[in-house]
């Protein structure tokens, strides 16, 4: 993925919610994306699937998957890519299931619209298989979403997401509404099915502790920009970007777990970003150059990328 640029036109002027975001993802890899609320994480996830809704618009960039640029595909071809190649578990998954359809029908319609027209028996079979693989009982197939607990709903979403064996699974804060125990179970389920499929995962979230346990590499977003991407071990021990540094420092020290509460200073308004490095008003190391010139994401040490002039 290269130089993704997404704008939201708002009544108050255009907002750049993702600017020159670039990264790559290897097969089977788990990439985490963290950032403060409003930093553009969900925008990024939706942009990969080309699901940005007006007033938003993808203005530039490329998303390459197995040699195909997704942004150049026709609408119909893009539709086929969704779920079949890239599956998204959207934010707010508590309401991600249609309240008036049975779970099995919500799996079946995905199969049907992707050109698979299996018989009724085959559908039932496949639904059972999928539910089983995410640890749900077969009876769930005939239930409605309101009859399921939060964790069960999330598992059902995962079941749908893997129903066409996608290459990439994007999970946008899949566990934020769940309590800790259920959170852990759901993440284990996700990890297991990912391994079975050999798919890559992009996990979006706030919870650094969860990230530390789950992902291989971690990307940090700030004001619509990816400002650091490093292997997760390195990020916790030697963060490259001053923002990441402050983020790590602000974590409760208990095994570096817990949700980060942010750092001093105000989150910048995306429609009114400071010139130069967007982080400079809050950065303790800021120099003149930071106020004038925007830093680019560079490889600073093997596999360690950051966007900061001082590195």
């Amino acid at each position: 993925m290269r130089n993704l640029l997404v704008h939201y036109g708002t009544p108050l002027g255009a907002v750049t919610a993702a600017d020159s975001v670039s990264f790559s993802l290897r097969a089977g890899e788990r990439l985490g994306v963290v950032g403060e609320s409003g930093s553009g994480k969900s925008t990024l996830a939706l942009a990969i699937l080309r699901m940005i809704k007006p007033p938003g618009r993808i203005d530039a960039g490329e998303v390459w998957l197995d040699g195909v640029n997704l942004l150049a595909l026709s609408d119909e071809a893009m539709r086929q890519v969704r779920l079949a190649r890239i599956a998204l578990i959207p934010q707010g998954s508590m309401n991600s299931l249609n309240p008036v359809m049975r779970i099995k029908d919500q799996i079946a319609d995905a199969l049907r619209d992707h050109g698979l027209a299996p018989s009724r028996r085959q559908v039932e079979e496949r639904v059972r298989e999928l539910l089983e693989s995410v640890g749900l009982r077969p009876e769930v197939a005939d239930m409605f979403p309101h009859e399921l607990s939060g964790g069960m709903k999330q598992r059902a979403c995962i079941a749908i997401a893997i129903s066409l064996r996608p290459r990439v699974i994007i999970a946008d804060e899949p566990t934020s509404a769940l309590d800790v125990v259920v959170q852990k179970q759901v993440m284990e389920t996700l990890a297991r099915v990912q391994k079975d499929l050999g798919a890559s995962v992009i996990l979006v979230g706030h919870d650094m502790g969860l990230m530390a346990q789950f992902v291989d590499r971690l990307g940090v977003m700030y004001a619509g920009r990816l400002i650091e991407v490093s292997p997760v071990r390195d990020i916790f021990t030697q963060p490259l970007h001053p923002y990441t540094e402050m983020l790590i420092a602000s974590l409760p020290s208990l095994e570096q777990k817990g949700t980060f509460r942010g750092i001093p200073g105000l989150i910048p308004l995306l429609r009114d970003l400071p010139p130069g490095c967007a982080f400079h008003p809050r950065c303790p190391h800021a120099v003149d150059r930071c106020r004038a010139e925007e830093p680019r994401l560079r490889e600073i040490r093997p596999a360690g990328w950051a966007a900061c002039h001082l590195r």
Partner: protein
Amino acid sequence: MRADYLARRVGVFVLIVWLAATLNFFLPRLSGQDPVRATLLQQASLGGHVQTGLEAMVKEYERRFGLDRPLWKQYVTYLRDVSRFDFNYSISSYPRTVNSIIAEAIPWTVGLLGITTVLSFTIGTLLGALLAWPGAPRWMRLLMPPLWALHAIPFFLLGLILMYLLAFRMQLLPMFGGYTAGAFPGLTLTFVGDVIAHSILPALSIVLVATGGWALGMRGMMVTTQGEDYVTFAEAKGLRRLTIFLRYCVRNAILPQTTALALALGNILSGAVLVEVIFGYPGVGTILFHAIRENDHFLIQGIVFTVIVALGVATLILDVLYPLLDPRISYRRT
């Protein structure tokens, strides 16, 4: 279906009906004197060939609702009559009973409003859904302002305009009544044709106004639904646009519309009183109008009560059927 669910719904129904009866009984008595008695006495003193009957009626009324009886006894008597659907004779067209007058008017009103309500619901909901569909042709947006404007106009005003234009100026359609005066009511082709011709104008004024309301309501619900997480997920599932539209958006947006339809159907008897009055259509609204003019309290009370019972029945039916539409509402909970 659980028995206690049904019992609770029936309970609400009885409560509404009881409230209506109580209102009917106490409101006229609030002013201190009983206007029913006043009208009765006045009518009986006018004399005429029905006088003896009316006098008997006054006597009977005094016996049951006389001032010498305590209020609560009168109230109990009244409730008993009402529960038997006994609304007494019509004061203005004695010796006809209130029941027979209402019974004659009901088919007209139910026919006119039943058809127009279902028609405008169907057209309006379809339009509203299409208006919210991203794939809809551009010109459809031009329909919005006129729909809005029509929707803001009361039925009977549009009725007046249509009547003037189509019936008075162009003489395309008959102006008044439910059928041509002097025609012999029966199930003949000419009579049915006559009735239809007379119904077109009142029906048109209702449909034109009501369709806009249904369309706007549906469109609003569609917009809300399209912002729901399950629609985002449906898109992420790579579903076809049509599948998302029909099975995710429309399917959910139609639920509140259906509730509103049931209520509108329940309101059928009083839904267009003024349209009936303007067109002299022989339905419940028109007899209500005449009853008001003639101070026929028994008839007025009978109509009000009947209308509210009809409404209660419709709500009851809705409550019983709704869980079939929306799995979240089960018979077990509330």
